[in-house]
């Protein structure tokens, strides 16, 4: 298909963004100078930075051009030396549009090109700022879909996150719950570096005014918990605000974010399956995150997210609309043999029991209690880790589930595997177990079925890839012989 030819440059306002980058680079040393040398040095320095930075930004803007012609995308740049980056269009995997807060104020978008595996830093494969219209035109030309927008029936909406669901997702996500702790840690770290005894004096002052009234302490603790929950909800809302997933038949487009709005596009052809993940915190609410298993993407956070938070029933429908053959995550799976439970216990218990023994020997009451709690939770965790293990092959899609604190249910097309791997340790063989791994490659990672029974593995491999694997499976009678 011959796309239209495009020869364009960045939006004039992009100068602002480029200049900001130059100034941003000098901001850290400037701040350091300000602290050490005071304003007398910093003002002239800033003036010099502006005098050099702004013309440099203008120059770099004027030298930057992008061209689409002859089946190639070319990025021309360079202030001193000229530089041309050429990407054949068939190596182009995607065109992502993002808009930071500043971009949105100016009505611009940033364009990032996703090239097939390897090669170069991201900054060199992006347009810092172009107008929204230019970006759309460019994307249409690059993805070879220069169709009339009016004629299109419009994309199908597959998923939309409601604010309530996102807030619930935030307060049940360890990542967002721990964010305030990270901030507190950061502030304390900073306080350590403050000159003099400012930090100590502040701590003393706080200690003096510390409440002694139990009711007040309780109130403060409750307040802190509420604050953490609110921050977690806010964090989730900020990142995933109005998350929408649209399907135009060829691509899935995920848009999200409150201040910075991101658009990530994913070729439907590159989807190999999907993961549904949840945690013990989320399980009582029946909510989970759904991500696509896609090849050819450079790994990055949220790049393949289909839904940050969704209910189990909605997840099943979403999976089916992305992959018509996808099984329902709520469907029961084939459990792994009881020996797998023993193995989970054997692998978690020794440390916990050791701590319990040490605490008992030392006769420290609180340590005994703590060690007993640790042991009990280790047992519960091991039992749950076993309970979650499961697999199923319906002839077209392989389903695997594992993990407890981070539970992952995956469905994938076994034909997508670039390699199969069967492993067994001496302990596993004694228990008649093994681990089967499917390597997917191109950034899609690997998925494994932990502690399968040997019979199960043999049966599964025979059915999974009858031509490739079945001839290798040892016949039952011959099995169990030499080792």
């Amino acid at each position, binding site marked *: 298909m011959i796309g239209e030819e495009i020869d364009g440059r960045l939006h004039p306002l992009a100068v602002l963004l480029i200049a900001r980058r130059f100034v941003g680079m000098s901001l850290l040393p400037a701040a350091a100078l300000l602290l050490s040398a005071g304003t007398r040095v910093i003002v002239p320095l800033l003036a010099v930075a502006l005098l050099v930075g702004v013309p440099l930004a203008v120059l770099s803007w004027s030298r930057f051009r992008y061209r689409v012609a002859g089946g190639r995308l070319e990025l021309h740049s360079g202030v001193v030396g000229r530089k041309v980056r050429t990407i054949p269009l068939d190596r182009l995997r995607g065109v992502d549009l993002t808009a930071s807060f500043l971009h949105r104020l100016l009505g611009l978008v940033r364009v990032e090109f996703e090239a097939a595996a390897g090669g170069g830093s991201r900054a060199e494969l992006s347009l810092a700022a172009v107008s929204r219209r230019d970006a759309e035109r460019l994307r249409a030309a690059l993805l070879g879909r220069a169709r009339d927008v009016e004629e299109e029936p419009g994309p199908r909406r597959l998923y939309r996150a409601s604010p309530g669901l996102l807030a619930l997702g935030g307060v049940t996500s360890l990542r967002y719950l721990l964010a305030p702790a990270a901030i507190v840690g950061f502030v304390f770290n900073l306080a350590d570096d403050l000159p003099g005894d400012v930090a100590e004096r502040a701590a003393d002052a706080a200690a003096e005014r510390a409440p002694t009234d139990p009711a007040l302490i309780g109130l403060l603790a409750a307040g802190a918990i509420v604050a953490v929950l609110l921050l977690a909800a806010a964090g989730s809302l900020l990142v995933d605000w109005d998350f929408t997933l649209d399907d135009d038949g060829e691509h899935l487009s995920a848009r999200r974010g409150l201040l910075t709005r991101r658009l990530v596009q994913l070729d439907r052809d590159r989807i190999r399956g999907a993961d549904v993940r949840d945690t013990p915190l989320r399980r009582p609410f029946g909510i989970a995150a759904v991500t696509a298993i896609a*090849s050819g993407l450079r790994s990055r956070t949220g790049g393949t997210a289909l839904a940050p938070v969704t209910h189990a029933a909605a997840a099943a429908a979403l999976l089916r609309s992305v992959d018509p053959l996808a099984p329902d995550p709520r469907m029961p799976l084939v459990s792994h043999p009881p020996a797998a439970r023993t193995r989970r216990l054997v692998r978690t218990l020794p440390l916990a029991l050791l701590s319990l023994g040490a605490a008992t020997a030392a006769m420290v009451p609180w340590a005994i209690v703590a060690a007993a709690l640790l042991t009990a939770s280790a047992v519960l965790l091991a039992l749950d880790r076993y309970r979650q293990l499961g697999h199923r092959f319906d002839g077209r899609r392989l389903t695997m589930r594992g993990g407890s604190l981070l539970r992952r249910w995956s469905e994938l097309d076994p034909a997508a*595997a*670039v*390699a*199969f*791997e*069967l*492993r*067994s*340790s*001496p302990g596993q*063989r004694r228990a008649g177990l*093994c681990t089967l*791994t499917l*390597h*997917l*490659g*191109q950034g*899609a990672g*690997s998925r494994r079925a932990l502690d399968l029974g*040997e019979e199960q*593995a*043999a049966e599964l*491999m025979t059915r999974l*890839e009858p*031509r*490739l*694997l079945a*001839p*290798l*499976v*040892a016949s039952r009678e*011959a*099995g*169990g*012989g030499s*080792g």
Partner: protein
Amino acid sequence: MILRAPANAIDPRMRTYWTVQALMATAALGALVAAGAAIAAMVGATTAAWIVGLAGGLGVLLVAASSLVAVRLGYRHFRYEVTEHGLYVARGRFWRRQQIVPHARLQTVDTTAGPLLRAFGLVAVQVSTASAAGGTSIPGLRRPVADELITELARRAELEEGT
């Protein structure tokens, strides 16, 4: 035993190659122990020198013995086979690992040979796929055998691509 063993063993000279490697490593370890004992003796800590020398020497002997056993087991349990639809490689006596790479998923086949391996007239064959974890390797084959293997893999990869 879930999968049958692959048909081919690697070149028997790999035993000698790995043994030489193991002996070189053990010799380095032994030299370290000897140096430690000598330094202790020079400083005048005779007891320490004896302890270092005896314990270290025993350790070195143990390492040497176990690596010799490991070499033999490693050789015996490393097997490979080109089947109709894939390359099948099995390794390990205790931690067993069996990999199957479909011919259609093969990306590159490389042969490498360090100076020592070359001295034995052997090459190592590396097979890579789109997954960093999904590749495999065969550590020691005679050059003609390796060439034959590579030709065979290339031919089958082409056949699979067509279907």
